[in-house]
């Protein structure tokens, strides 16, 4: 007599447990599907490789991101020319305006604009992207002096040459 309502109570608890697990699992799958479907719209910028592979429609505004190629920066008044590279492909960029403080050769950068007829990227905005490494300046100097310094291009690591 006594264990009948008990068992029913357990059953209800199990039902609610399954309902909650089902809700979370279902939402997880739904979110994964939606995010995969909208993958191209969720990236903040495209790489020079995307441009080389013609993944971007002509005459469309987009953002290009990568590293500022060492030795490529040419300044003429407020106009700066530089090359953005992902270590596989490179795109020349022309920008007129103030650059952020962190803009340096070898550093990450994101530019917004569109390609012109010669394949140059005419940027209307340039943002600096810093990497995930933090260290005191003395440590950075010591690493550079001892030859242990590796330019870690942040999330461009997966775009190593030959990969």
């Amino acid at each position: 007599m006594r264990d009948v309502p008990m068992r029913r109570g357990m059953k209800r608890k199990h039902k609610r447990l399954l309902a909650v697990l089902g809700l979370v699992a279902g939402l997880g799958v739904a979110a994964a599907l939606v995010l995969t479907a909208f993958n191209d719209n969720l990236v903040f910028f495209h790489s020079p490789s995307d441009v080389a592979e013609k993944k971007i429609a002509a005459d469309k505004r987009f953002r290009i991101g990568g590293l500022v190629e060492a030795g490529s920066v040419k300044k003429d008044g407020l106009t700066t020319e530089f090359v953005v590279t992902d270590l596989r492909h490179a795109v020349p960029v022309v920008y007129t305006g103030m650059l952020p403080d962190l803009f340096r050769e070898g550093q990450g950068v994101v530019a917004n604009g569109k390609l012109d007829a010669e394949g140059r990227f005419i940027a209307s905005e340039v943002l600096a992207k810093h990497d995930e490494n933090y260290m005191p300046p003395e440590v950075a100097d010591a690493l550079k002096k001892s030859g242990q310094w590796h330019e870690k291009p942040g999330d461009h690591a997966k775009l190593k040459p030959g990969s």
Partner: protein
Amino acid sequence: MHALANPARFLRLMAAIRPYAAAVAIIGLVVGLGWGLLISPRDYQQGETVRIMYIHVPSAWMAMFIYAAIAVSSAVALIWRHPVAELVAKASAPVGAAFTLICLVTGSLWGKPMWGTWWVWDARLTSMLILFFLYLGYIALWEAFDDPSRAGRAAAILALVGAVNLPIIKFSVDWWNTLHQPASVLTLEGPKIHPDILWPLLITAVGAQGYYVWILSLRVRAEILNRQARILRFSAAADRRAG
């Protein structure tokens, strides 16, 4: 867990934990922020601006941790009808919302000098803004019902639905190109922060965690007493009608 479903026992446990949580909060925040803001070295590329991290990053961690705590408590409340779990979730929400707001504001203040912009719609920043709206929606939903048991159930379901955003926030910087840099501390290769910068950050984070437990213990006590007062009011009204 079932032992803690008893509000009186839960209140005793909270009262016992409270002074320790307060001590962790005060020591952790004073030592961590003092070390981070005044003593720790500047960063090789960001200079003094890196000090915003000592407020920004612990706030971001707490924003996500507290939301996870709300989601777990909500699941416990829904499945086992655990009355205290529901109040733990309710009492946590404004604390988490405050940490999320601090994270968004300090991130914006950090973005302007470093990136060159206050705000961009990249996946990390956008998913964090969604977290803030989830907190506000959760708080509003509690207030939208007169009957607390219905409010609690609706809010718990919202909390569980929103939990899907947590892995999106964490992995947004790995799944998509973002302006925000990838993870520095919780990575498979280990932290990418020099110990002189990492230690004050971790101590501040522990202090923030202590602050949450401290404030939570006070807020849950208020919620439990509030609910008991409501029951007393109802029974007094019923007595008056009967007499």
